[in-house]
């Protein structure tokens, strides 16, 4: 395999993991924009998607599509319950207590998953066959195409929801100004709940489509969640295009870094990028700085 083929190969795998990071990042951004919360439990929704599909498939012996639907439904319910039980009852939420509560939530969800389904790693079967296709000399798995396709679909649906439906517009209003939004009759609490529902659904989908490539287990959520957060930070916490670009950029950096520099430091790349961006451009690569209001 010559260098060009190798680079194409890196680009493909970079794009597909990048797409996953983008989806997870979207989940972060959606919740952040309507509530101002960084949901540290976001990665656990991703984990739940993969693990629940695996167990609906093998233990309940459901057909693949139904198993996925069950996984998304259960994860979404878990997301809604999490908001309802821990976030909403807070009387005076400070960023510190919200960070700690969502961390507690993520530990709790991970622990329950471990107790219910054990510590083993499992692979989901690929959606359609295992024969690699050859594109430009590089081989690409059909699963990569599924990832691209489904990611594009989710992003498009997301765009449609936030710009062309009443609920979506109401959620955007909340992200601009919660008090003003409630003054024009938007039920802010319902929108917060809705943001958790959407982002847990998106997160679980991301977990399902990546599981055939990278395996799934009770503890995959930590890393995936953090990488998704990096993507959202690069994109400046926008629930649109910025985060998608951020995810792809991160995926490519990681895949080229692992291929050309060292695979051991692959995970470090994402966090070095995260620190650099937070230090130099905390508002993200693609947006203007805002001044802090006191």
């Amino acid at each position, binding site marked *: 395999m010559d260098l060009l083929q190798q680079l194409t190969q890196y680009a493909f795998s970079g794009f597909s993991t990048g797409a996953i990071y983008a989806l997870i990042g979207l989940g972060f951004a959606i919740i952040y924009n309507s509530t101002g*919360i*960084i949901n*540290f439990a976001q990665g656990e929704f991703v984990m739940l998607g993969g693990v629940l599909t695996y167990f609906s498939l093998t233990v309940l012996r459901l057909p693949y599509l139904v198993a996925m639907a069950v996984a998304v439904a259960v994860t979404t319910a878990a997301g809604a319950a999490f908001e309802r039980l*821990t976030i909403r*009852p*807070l009387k005076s939420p400070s*960023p*510190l*207590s*919200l*960070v*700690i*509560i969502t*961390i*507690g*939530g*993520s*530990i*709790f*969800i*991970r*622990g*329950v998953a*471990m*107790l219910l389904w054990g510590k083993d790693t499992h692979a989901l079967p690929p959606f359609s066959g295992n024969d690699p296709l050859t594109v430009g000399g590089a081989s690409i798995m059909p699963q990569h195409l599924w990832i691209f396709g489904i990611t594009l679909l989710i992003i498009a649906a997301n765009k449609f929801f936030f710009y062309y439906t009443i609920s979506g517009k109401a959620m955007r209003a909340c992200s601009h100004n919660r008090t003003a939004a409630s003054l024009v009759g938007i039920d802010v609490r319902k929108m917060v709940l809705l943001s958790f529902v959407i982002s847990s659904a998106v997160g679980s989908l991301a977990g399902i489509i990546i599981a055939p490539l990278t395996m799934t287990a009770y503890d995959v959520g*930590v890393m995936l969640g*953090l990488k998704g*957060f*990096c993507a959202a*930070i690069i994109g400046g916490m926008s629930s649109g295009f910025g985060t998608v670009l951020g995810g792809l950029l991160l995926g490519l950096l990681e895949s080229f870094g692992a291929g050309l520099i*060292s695979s*051991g*430091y692959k*995970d*470090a790349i994402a*966090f*070095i990028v*995260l*620190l650099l961006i*937070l*230090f130099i451009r*905390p508002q993200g690569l693609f947006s203007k700085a805002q001044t802090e209001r*006191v």
Partner: protein
Amino acid sequence: MKRDYLLFLLFTLVVLVAPLAFEGGYLLNVLVFMGINTMLAVALNLLLGFAGQISLGHAAFFGLGAYISGVLTANHGVNPWVALPIAALSVGVIAFLLGFPILKLKGHYLAMATLGFGIIVFIVFNETVEITGGPSGLTGIPTMKIGAMEFQGEMKSYYLIWGFTLLTMLLSINLDHSRIGRALRAIHDSEVASRVMGVNARFLKVQVFTLSAVISAVAGSLYAHTMTFVSPSSFGFNFSVELVTMVIIGGLGSIFGSFLGAALLTFLPELLRVVQDYDIVVYGLLLIVMTMYMPKGLAGGVASLARLLRPAKKRTVDHAQG
């Protein structure tokens, strides 16, 4: 103020006498770890409880202290008593340089940045196999010695570690009652307001971050020389979260609270050993429930209980003064 020192004196006495109750063995070993955890929790509390700045990467400073001390003594034959200050100083320099950019961030962003730093350090521990021994760990770290006396076995380790822990607590109590302690609390309440009042918030935050990291590094060095073995898995993200849990459960800004939190989290895994693996679920629930219903932690709970038990008349007087 006087009450804190009185409590400290009492606490010191209990700590000094405690090991006589269980001559050696397993429980004393647990108490040694409790000492290390208390030291770490008090250090993190300076940052989290006093200054209100979260760090999800404190296990990295603990680990850096342990590894710098361990590598110097095991691979280069440096005396442990020399290695300890070198470890503390180098971690101090790292924290000071890191502090300026990282403490500009607030809330969630600070949490994520410190977390990222912790994970990078963790990866370095694992990947620099020639120096650290990689995932399988670093062996052959010598124990501390004074003259011919070697700090080996539970009893001697206990007094060595609790000596340092008590010093850390005393230092923190002093800091709490100083001008700096009050300035830090002002930053916690409102950074802008404290700056308006003439507090150099940015520099003070970096200073307390550095101090907290240095104490953690000392704890790390002591840990390395007590265990004589270190491996990366003790310094990962989970341990950073565990440290935050100790501080929160104990009570933000309370030195003795940090001890309570550390004690609980050291004993809990031992108690939960029967129902193995449940501990992680219990941690998660504890974090959520404590933050929601007992934001002042165990120390706050004890204090309000004490207030309730006192006669009503005295309570109103207290109230007027407080």
